[in-house]
Structure formats: structure tokens, C-alpha cells
């Protein structure tokens, strides 16, 4: 502020009042578009959802609803038939998918790290799943995994393995969707890790090689620690995305995550509450809780990252 006011008098004579006003408030003015955008598209919807979660809104959000305090939260948190199993499935889905994606992603990134003949083509092929739209991917795998007319069982038949239920099975549906997620998103992890690997300097590797470290030792004690910041970024990005997965699950199993809610994660559950049951109050409650879970997971990861830096 001091600098602005000290400058103002120099040109003050003859400058219209509004120019001076603009000059005085420029830090607010320049930030205004971005702030309006954030307010309209983030703060307002979030606040509205928060408000709805405290009401018994159902049927139509324009219909009259009553303020019920934290009743919805009590109901949802004590619901062991839909809510907690959905939390469990969300955690399983994210945890298992993330684990496979990181391990596979790291392996593929290491393979692609050193230049080799035809590398360009291999890279393109590996990145292909990433550019397909998840709904189309879901539909494709749904056809492949159809227990009666799908290709997967035909291929299994050639090598003498009997038909599997895949997406149709009560206990095989979730693993199958995890497989689809891994198929689609491992390339993204590869991409991030590869970027990290390429930026690593050669010296520590050479030093380790001269000291007689084996390939595994070099990976474990040189490459991995140096790559840790990138790995954390990959986990963070992919983890949050996996938590929020909806498209693949909905395209393969439909409403409610299948007849036994086999793949009903929190996102699918909240969607069903809104669009099938029109229970806007309860749905908002689930979404707010889900939001808190994601923030919690993010916080835990970034806290670890800071700790590791220290």
C-alpha cells in the first residue's frame, strides 16, 4: 500500500478519480475474475451441498425441506448395509488399483528409461489406453468380459480353462473393475515416473556402479530415493483419481454398482441417492463425508512427503 500511495501524488494532478481508484485497488481488481470463478464454481456448490446435508431435502430440491441438523450424519455413519460397505469398497478399489499401478508403472518406466530400437512405437502403444474415454473403455471390457458371449471366456477356453463370471460374479466383479482401472491408468503412472527418471542425473548411478552395487541395489538405494518426490506426486494424483472413480464402475455395472452392490463405491452410492432415490439431503451428507475422506487422504500423503524431505 505504501508504495502505491507514495506514487499516486506524482501523477495526481489531472488524473480522473476512477483511475486513481483502480490504481489503489488493482490487487483486488486483477484477482477478481479468478476469485469470482472460484466462488461460483467451487465455494458456492460446496456450501450448498453442505447446507443440503443438514436438511431432509428429497424429491425435488425446490420442494420445502426442513433443517434437521446432524441427523443425516448420524444416520449415514450408523448405516452398515450401504454406507460402510461402500467405504470399504472405495478403499479396496483405490488401494489395490494404486498398488498394481505403481508397481507395474515403475517396472514399465524403468524398461522404457534406457533408449532402445523401436522405443517410440512401444511408448505410443503403452499410452493408448490413457487416451480412450473411460465410458468407452467400460463398454468395451463389459463386452469382452460377458460371461456368455464375451471374448475373455473364449480365450480361456482355448487354453482349457473353464468360463469365469468376471463382471457378472458377486465376488469377481470388484477385482475385474480393478483390473480395468489398472489397464487404463498404469500408463499415466508410467508417464509421470518416466518424466522423473529422465530428469535424474547420471553421476550417482555411475558412482554406485563403480562401488560395485548390483542392479537391484542401485534401484533400491539410488534410483528410488532420488525418485521419491515424483513417486509421491504419482501416488497423490492417481490415488485421488482412483478414489473418485465413477465412469468405469457405472459403465460396467450400472446403477447401484450391480444387483448386490458389488462395485458400489462412495461415488456410485451418492449418485444413486441423488438420481435414483432423489434423497438430496442424505446424498449431500455422503458427498461431504467423502470429501472429508479425500482431504484426509491427501493431507496424510503430503504430510508424509514433508516429513521425508526433512
Amino acid at each position: 500500500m505504501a508504495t502505491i500511495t507514495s506514487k499516486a501524488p506524482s501523477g495526481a494532478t489531472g488524473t480522473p478519480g476512477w483511475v486513481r481508484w483502480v490504481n489503489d485497488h488493482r490487487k483486488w481488481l486483477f484477482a477478481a475474475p479468478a476469485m469470482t470463478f472460484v466462488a461460483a464454481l467451487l465455494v458456492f456448490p460446496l456450501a450448498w451441498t453442505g447446507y443440503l446435508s443438514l436438511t431432509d431435502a428429497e424429491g425435488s430440491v425446490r420442494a420445502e425441506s426442513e433443517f434437521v441438523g446432524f441427523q443425516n450424519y448420524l444416520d449415514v455413519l450408523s448405516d452398515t448395509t450401504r454406507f460402510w460397505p461402500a467405504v470399504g469398497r472405495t478403499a479396496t478399489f483405490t488401494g489395490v488399483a494404486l498398488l498394481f499401478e505403481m508397481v507395474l508403472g515403475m517396472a514399465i518406466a524403468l524398461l522404457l528409461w534406457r533408449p532402445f530400437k523401436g522405443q517410440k512405437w512401444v511408448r505410443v502403444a503403452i499410452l493408448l489406453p490413457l487416451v480412450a474415454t473411460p465410458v468407452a473403455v467400460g463398454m468395451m471390457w463389459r463386452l469382452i468380459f460377458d460371461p456368455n458371449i464375451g471374448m475373455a471366456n473364449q480365450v480361456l477356453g482355448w487354453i482349457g480353462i473353464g468360463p469365469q463370471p468376471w463382471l457378472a460374479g458377486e465376488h469377481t466383479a470388484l477385482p475385474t473393475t480393478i483390473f480395468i482401472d489398472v489397464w487404463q491408468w498404469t500408463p499415466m503412472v508410467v508417464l509421470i515416473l518416466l518424466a522423473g527418471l529422465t530428469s535424474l542425473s547420471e553421476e550417482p548411478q555411475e558412482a554406485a556402479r563403480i562401488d560395485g552395487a548390483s542392479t537391484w541395489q542401485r534401484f533400491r538405494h539410488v534410483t528410488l530415493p532420488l525418485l521419491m518426490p515424483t513417486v509421491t506426486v504419482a501416488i497423490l494424483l492417481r490415488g485421488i483419481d482412483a478414489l473418485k472413480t465413477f465412469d468405469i464402475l457405472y459403465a460396467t455395472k450400472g446403477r447401484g454398482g450391480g444387483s448386490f452392490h458389488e462395485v458400489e463405491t462412495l461415488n456410485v452410492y451418492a449418485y444413486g441417492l441423488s438420481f435414483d432415490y432423489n434423497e438430496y439431503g442424505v446424498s449431500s451428507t455422503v458427498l461431504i463425508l467423502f470429501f472429508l475422506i479425500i482431504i484426509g487422504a491427501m493431507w496424510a500423503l503430503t504430510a508424509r512427503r514433508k516429513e521425508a524431505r526433512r
Partner: protein
Amino acid sequence: MSLTACGGGDGGGASDTVRVTLANHVWTENVKQALPEFEKQTGLKVEITQLGEDQLSDQYNVKLNAGSADIDVMMYRPLQEGKLFARNKYLADLTEQVKSESWDFSDFQPGPVQSTTYESKPVGIPIITEQEVLYYRKDLLEKAGLSAPPKTLDELKAAAAKIKESEPDVAGFVARTGKSAAVTQFSSFLYSFGGDFVDQSGKSAVGTDAAKQAYAYYGELIKDYGPANVSTDMGWPEAMAIFTQGKAAFYTEANSLYKNATDADKSKVSDQVGFAPFPAGPAGSKPYNIPSWALGINDASENTENAWKFIEWATGKEQTLAQQKSGVPGARTSVWADPEGVSTFPEDLAEAIAASTENGVGHDRPLVVKVAEAREIVGQPIVDAITGKDAAASADTAHTAFQQFLDDEAE
């Protein structure tokens, strides 16, 4: 909220453009073909948005919830969403409009009209009616030495067993298996066993002996004689695919979808499909006979007059007859009385439909406000029975839950 403002802004006044939202259906394809004629007659422009059933519901939930005026005419499912939409005041009162004499409201079948009426005011015009019939494969029946399609549910089971035994690659029977999707097609089984979802006094009836028998029968038919590794997510597209790929001998489904089975472009067995009335159970043959779709006017629309013009044309005698001739069963009595109106149906299908309209039940799902939730509750025993769990125990659980649901809704 800003979206609402935009929607209201450009929809102002009686525009010459009527915005119509329709579901993917043979009916819609026919309307699109006939549309130029309507546009020429009236000088109006019709903008059609076409969506799948589920996407259509979601679209309505979003737009109508926001009070958006950018839908004028809406195609909706009276039994699925009718009560909810009317209660939420999404549907305009059509009392004045239906008085149009040349259009003749009294020509509509009373059953369908009842389900598009809310608090004794008409809020929708039924366009498509549906009855459940038995689809079957003539060649497979002949091969198995059966001279005629089964007349009772016992015969159906025996025939399905026989075919599955002689043709290991072909299922004896297929039908919808998804918890929610199966409810409507299961309802005819339930009625034919003497049950219903709700009894006379408004209490849950899914725990009765009749209901338990129906659940067990339907589940067993699919578990024992259905496709191997049957999925419990099948709606009509999946079940129909199995039938039209030649992988099943019998299939119970809504007649309005019959073109999918008899059209050579869509079906590998188009020349071998036969139709029969719904087989009789202990309580006789009691298929549903319902209005599956209706047209309504968005209460927030600012173009109601032109919207009605579209409805008046699309539900008029001429269009209804044309629709029915192309295979869409209509809701006007005159088109059923007209020999021309039934001329294009396969003969056995016309007979099956006639039988269904005679002894049909006017609903195929619980008649409540929150239909989606109710369907999931009463549908649970279906999937439990299909996967080999105890159908009776599951029906008892569903009964308790459904009674609770009804009590909540009555509050």
C-alpha cells in the same frame, strides 16, 4: 443457479421452437420421420433431444429440479416417475387442453389414463402401452418335439428343461436378471401365482406364500435352465441380445420390444420367433398391461400452447394408428378396434396382446412415489433366487424392508 437464469432467459415467451425431450424408442424414430409434416402444417420448429431411459431420468432430475424452462414437451414413464414428477409439480395440468373435441380424449384406454392422472387432473397423455408376452423359438420347439408353446408355467419349465438338455449350448429360458430391471417382467409371474407387491389394504405383500412361490419359480427357471454363468445385471438389451443371438428358447418380455427380435438386421433368428400369451400360473394368466410412456408438458415451460400442439398431433388418431402399424402398441381404443391397426403385427403376437389386454393387470411395479427405491427392495429376492440363495428367506427380509418403506412414504 446461474444455469437456471440462462435457461429461463432464452426460453422467454411463446417461441416458434418447441423443445421436445424423448427416449430412445421405436416410437421416437417414427415421430422423427413424420415430423416434417407437422412442421409444415403448423409452421413450428421442433427440436428433439433424444436420450436413453436412464440418461433421460437424470436429465429431468437435473433440469426440472432447477426449474429450467428449456424443456417444453417431455416423454416420461408414468409408472416410474409419474407420481414423483406430479408431486414435485414438474408436470403441467392439462385439464383444459384435453377438452379438444376432434382430438377425442375419451378414446384413450381408461387404465393408461388413470396412471397419467394426478389428483384427478390429467398431467400426461399415454402414448405407448405394453403387455408382457412369451417370445419363443419355433425351430427349437419343433426340434424338441413340442407342437405348441407352453400354456402354463409348469409346461414352460418342462419345455425349458427339455430344450436345455437336448441343446447344451442353448439356454431353455432367458429374462431380465438385474435387481431393478427384472421387477417389471417378474410382475406377471407374481400376479399369475396370485400375488402382488402391495395388498388391498396397502400393506406389503412380497412376503406372502404366492410371492415366495413366484420368486422361487422365476429364480429357478433362470438358475437351472437359463444361460450358463448368468449375470445378475441384465436389463432388456442384454437379455434380448442372448435371445436374438440364438442362445435361448424362451424369453418373457414386453411386447413393445418385439421388433428387436423379428427385425433381420437386429436378430439372427428373426424368421424363427414366435409369440404366445403369458403362460398361466395357479391364478391364471395375469400379465401386466400398462402405459409405458406418456407425453407431458414441463410446468416451467413458457411455450405451453405450442407444446400442446405437438402433443395433440403426436397423440392424435392418425399418428397413433401410424405408430401402431409400425409396431408400437398405442393407448387409443379406436386403433385396436380398427383392423388396419393390428394388420402389421405378427398374427400370434396380435392374439397374445388381445389376451393380455383382456385379463391384464394395470401396473408392473409398486405404485409408489419413490419407485426406484421400491424396485430395488422387491427385486432383491429375484437376484437372490437366481444366485441360488433361499428365496423364501429373502422374500421375508424384503417384506420387512418394503413395509418399512411403505410406512415411511405414508408419513
